[in-house]
């Protein structure tokens, strides 16, 4: 018989320090698939759960380069190839006049890449997520801090994880159904 599927084990903490400490100790204990939840960004928390690769800057750089090239090449093609108009004897390829639009397009594409790249890398929008099955989790957007060990972790054994988390002195521990 199949057991009800479990998403992971969640521990609730009171403060930034207990969460940071707990996250560090969980990672050092060899758990790989862990996450932490907090009502505001905490410096060092991402490192504490073993997250190092942030691709957002690369996405923004690519967006900016594409935007700048699009802006300049569009103006070049329009002004030189498709619709050359003599304005006050200026050359068709009057590059100083093209700087502004190139700049604005760079910013536009980079900004759009930053927002939508961040959302996509975060997997948002996500209408359903198992963490919300925990009734206490609503406080993660107020004043509580949560640490999660996912059941997909190779070391995940419910009883052991629970006793390990208890050793971190959380306020409460709950198993989160998938």
């Amino acid at each position, binding site marked *: 018989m199949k057991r009800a599927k479990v998403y992971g084990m969640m521990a609730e903490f009171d403060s930034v320090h207990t969460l940071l400490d707990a996250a560090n100790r969980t990672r050092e204990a060899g758990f790989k698939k862990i996450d932490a939840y907090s009502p505001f960004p905490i410096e060092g928390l991402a490192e504490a759960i073993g997250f190092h690769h942030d691709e957002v800057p690369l996405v923004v750089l690519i967006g900016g380069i594409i935007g700048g090239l699009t802006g300049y090449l569009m103006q070049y093609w329009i002004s030189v190839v498709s619709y050359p108009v003599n304005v006050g004897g200026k050359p068709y390829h009057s590059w100083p006049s093209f700087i502004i639009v190139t700049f604005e397009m760079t910013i536009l594409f980079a*900004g759009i890449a930053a927002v939508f790249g961040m959302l996509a890398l975060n997997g948002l929008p*996500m209408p359903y997520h198992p963490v919300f099955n925990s009734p206490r989790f609503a406080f993660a957007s107020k004043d509580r801090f949560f640490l999660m060990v996912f059941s997909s972790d190779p070391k995940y054994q419910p009883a052991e994880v629970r006793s390990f988390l208890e050793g971190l002195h959380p306020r409460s521990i709950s198993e989160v159904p998938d």
Partner: protein
Amino acid sequence: MEEPVQNERAPVIEPGYTLGSVTDKISSIVLTRPTSDSWFIGFGVMFLLTMMLLFAMGYLFVKGVGIWGVTIPIGWGFAIVNFVWWIGIGHAGTLISAILLLLRQSWRNSINRFAEAMTLFAVASAGIFPLIHVGRPWLAYWLFPYPNTMRVWPQFRSPLVWDVFAVSTYATISALFWFIGLIPDLATLRDRSEERWKKIIYGMLAMGWRGSARHWHRYETAYLLLAGLATPLVLSVHTVVSFDFAVGIVPGWHTTIFPPYFVAGAIYSGFAMVLMLAIPIRKIYKLEDFITERHLQNSAKVMLATGLIVAYGYGIEAFMGWYSGNRYDAFLLWNRLHGPYSFFYYMLLICNLGIPQVLWIPKLRSSPVWLFLVSLVVLVGMWLERFIIVVVSLHRDFLTSSWGMYYPTRWDWMTYIGTIGMFLAAMFLFVRLLPMISIFEMRTLLPEAEVKE
């Protein structure tokens, strides 16, 4: 033991707050505070003014720009004056949210949200004017380059085309910046709502935000990069607006001082608008603990500094009128001081250079009533500045035979006042439906949020 240096400035947030109480205080304004009668009255009046705007625009579409006071030689009347005025007001929001973030001015955290909303609504109000001013507004999309059967394209050597790109980029980036700032707070509202329909609406807007450490890390990176992008953008927008004038050869427009002078003027008027909104909001919603004397003082200091840059701009304009030896430039100065619109020029000097100097007095700088009045004066002064630049420069240029006068009509006034109504109606809705102070950024200011090594 040496005594620590006492910091005499007012705190950014009054002591005694916790993560929970900050959250409850700001989110309860939206979720549980009953909507007062005065809100309905205020919103109702502004809504009527918005309807007046739509009426004035509808009549304009039927009759054409002849209903306005614009004539030759003054082809740019109220529409361009108001466009520049509104877009300038928007600049303070981006300055607060982006530039002060990069400069690590944490006091910005309690005013950035509604300043960004102000930016968005001001840019929306600004955007209306050039579109309805083009004469055939139903063809306004011709401003954008798109493949068309006429096989024509915009002319990219024109500052007016640059302006289309600058303003539309600015509007897009401002909206994105505002929205990603809201996501974590929308999640808070989702989790705090009692009613199911509110949970669903805020939940959809929050897009499933759950505050994961991975998400926060990417979020902070994206937010910081966006601030880094918005900073040169906001400086470029009013620069490009000033190019609309400076590239023309009209006396009073054709000067290199315009870009910095326009940007400073934009921030000047924008902070005046921030104060005019913040002072009643903090009083009505009892947010004096979050928007403290410190915020008012700092905003007043920004106004003083940018006001002096604007004063320098006026000084250089007058100096160049004499020093250039150009008779048309010299005449422009004479015409400003003694021409038919001289009253407005003196009013401009009083509003922008004279009265705001009272802010040097610390006591007045921390008095909400004084700040509110001075801000009103600055907003009037900055509107007059754009009126002087547009109208006084155009009405008497090179040939005496082509001189003229500009008289705004009732339709000009209805459109202008209508956009003020639309702006304030949007602000009324904003303070009622969304958290007007960034909750998660306020949390980071609390002692509880400090990470000790």
